C-alpha cells in the first residue's frame, strides 16, 4: 500500500496545482463563457435550433477539454524540471515511474472534474433550448453520457501522449506542440486512409505518400473513432459493442504510451 500512498501524494499535488493554475482557470472560464453563447449561436438556425445548440455545446466542451489537456500536459513535468522542483522529487523515496504515474492520474482527475462541469452545464443549456424548440427526434441522454465517456478516454490518450513527450522534452512548448500535432493527426488518419483506399483520384498519389499515410493510421491513435457527437445531436442509433471496443482500445493505447513514457523517463539524465 505504500507505493499507492506515494502515488496518491503526487496525484494530490498535481490536481491542486492544476486547480490553482491561472492559465487553466482562464481556459475553463472561456469554456463557460462560450457555453453562454449557445442561445445566440443556435438562434440563427432555420429548422434545427436544438441540434445546432447540441453540436455547438459538444464541440465547445471538446475544444476546452483539449486545451486543458494540452496546456496542463505540456507543463506537467517540464515545469518541475524548469523550476528545479524535480531535484527534490528525485531525493524523495519514490521511483520515477511512480512519480510519472501520479502526475498522469492527477491530470486525469483534473480533466474528469473539468469535463464533468462542462458537460453538466452544456446539458442544461441544450435541455433548455430543446424545451423551447423541440427537436425532430427526442434527445437521448444516455448517448450524451456515452459521448462524454468517449471524449474523456480520448483526452486520456492525448494526456498519455503528452506525458510521453514530457519524458524526454526539455521545454514546456515541445510537449504542447507535439501533443496538439498528434491530436490533429489522430483525428484525420482514418479519413485520409478511407480517401486513399476509396477515392478514384487517390490512384494518382505517390506510393510513398500513400504508404506514410497508411502507416500513420496504424501508428498514431485513431481519435476519430471516439467521436460520436452526431449520434447525440441527431439521436442516431449507436453500436454498443463497437463503442466498447473503442473504449478498450483507448485504455490500452494509453497503457502502451505510459509504459513507453516511464521507460524513457527512467533513463533520463535529470542533473
Amino acid at each position, binding site marked *: 500500500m505504500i507505493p499507492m500512498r506515494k502515488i496518491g501524494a503526487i496525484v494530490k499535488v498535481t490536481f491542486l496545482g492544476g486547480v490553482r493554475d491561472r492559465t487553466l482557470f482562464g481556459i475553463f472560464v472561456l469554456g463557460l463563457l462560450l457555453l453562454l453563447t449557445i442561445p445566440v449561436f443556435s438562434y440563427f438556425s*432555420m*429548422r*434545427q435550433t436544438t441540434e445546432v445548440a447540441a*453540436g455547438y455545446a*459538444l464541440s465547445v466542451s471538446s475544444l476546452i477539454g483539449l486545451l486543458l489537456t494540452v496546456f496542463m500536459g505540456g507543463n506537467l513535468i517540464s515545469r518541475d524540471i524548469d523550476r528545479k522542483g524535480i531535484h527534490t522529487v528525485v531525493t524523495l523515496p519514490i521511483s520515477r515511474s511512480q512519480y510519472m504515474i501520479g502526475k498522469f492520474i492527477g491530470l486525469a482527475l483534473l480533466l474528469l472534474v473539468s469535463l464533468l462541469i462542462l458537460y453538466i452545464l452544456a446539458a442544461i443549456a441544450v435541455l433548455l433550448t430543446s424545451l423551447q424548440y423541440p427537436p*425532430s427526434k427526442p434527445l437521448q441522454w444516455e448517448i450524451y453520457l456515452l459521448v462524454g465517456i468517449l471524449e474523456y478516454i480520448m483526452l486520456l490518450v492525448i494526456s498519455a501522449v503528452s506525458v510521453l513527450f514530457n519524458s524526454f522534452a526539455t521545454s514546456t512548448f515541445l510537449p504542447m506542440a507535439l501533443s496538439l500535432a498528434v491530436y490533429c493527426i489522430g483525428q*484525420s488518419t482514418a*479519413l485520409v486512409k478511407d480517401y486513399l483506399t476509396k477515392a478514384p483520384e487517390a490512384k494518382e498519389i505517390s506510393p510513398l505518400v500513400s504508404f506514410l499515410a497508411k502507416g500513420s493510421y496504424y501508428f498514431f491513435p485513431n481519435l476519430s473513432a471516439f467521436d460520436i457527437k*452526431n449520434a447525440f*445531436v441527431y439521436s442516431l442509433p449507436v453500436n454498443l459493442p463497437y463503442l466498447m471496443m473503442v473504449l478498450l482500445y483507448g485504455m490500452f493505447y494509453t497503457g502502451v504510451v505510459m509504459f513507453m513514457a516511464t521507460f524513457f523517463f527512467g533513463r533520463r539524465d535529470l542533473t
Partner: protein
Amino acid sequence: MKRLPLFLLVLGLCGFSFSKVDRMRQDQALPPKLLLLPSKEMTQVLSFGNEILLAQLIFFDSMFFVGSLEAPPTPQINKELYHTLDTVTYLDPYNLDSYYFAQGVMSWNRSLLEPLNALLRRGMAHRSWDWQLPLFYGFNQFYFLQRPEEAAIYLNKAYQLNPKNEFLPTLIARLYYQADETEVAIYFLEEMIRNSKSEKLRKWMSVRLQAFRIVLFLENAIDQYQERYSSQPPSLEALVENGMLKAIPADPYGGKFYLDEKGKVGSTSKFAFAPKKSAVQGK
C-alpha cells in the same frame, strides 16, 4: 490629475478616428463573398473532429451572404452556393438547415436542379425519418422534371413519415390526374413559407407565391373563356375585351403576363427580378 486631460484627449482622438473608419468602411466595403473553401474532403480533414460545428459555421456564412444580397442570387452565385452547401452536407449529412436552404434558393434555377436533387438524395439517405426532404424531392420531380409518378412515390413517403400533413393525400391523388402545376406550386410555396424562419427567403418565396396566385387566377379565367367559346383565347387581352377580367394584373416581378402558343400563362419576367446593375455579384 494631469493624466485626466491626456486620457480624454486620447479617448477623443480614438472616437474621432473610429468615426472616420466607420464612414470610410461603408464607402469602400467590398461586396460580400462566400467563403472560399478547399475540396470537401480536405475541409473534413481540417475540421479535426468538429464536422458538425464547422458545417454549421459554413452554413451560417452562406446564409448571411444570401441575406446580404439585394436580389435573389444569380446563376453564378447559385453555383458557388451549391459548392458550399455540398461541402456542408458532406461534413454533416444530417444538417437539415442546408437542405431546406438549398431547396428554397436553388430549386428555381433549372441548371442546378440535378445537383440540388443529388443533395436531397444525400439528405434522404441519412435523415430517413424526415418528411420534408421527400416532400422537396417529390415537388422537384413533379414541377420541374414533369415526372408525376416519381413525384407521387416521394410525396407518399413524406405523408407516411408525417401523417399530420393533411394537404399531401389530396395532392398525391391529383398528381395521377395531371394536377394543375400552378396549384401544386402554390401548395408547396405556402408550406415552405409557413416553415421558414429566414426573413429574406420568406420574402422571396412570398413574391413567387403572389405571382403564382395571379397565374392561377388567369388560368381560371382562361378555363371560363374556353367553356363559353369552346376555344382558347388568342391572348390575355381577349379576356379583358370579353369582360371576363377587368384588367390583367401586374406581375410582382415587374414583367408582363402573356399567353404562349401552348396556351400557358407566362411572364416576360420569367418570374425573376431583372438583375440590377447594383446587385452584388459573387467572387
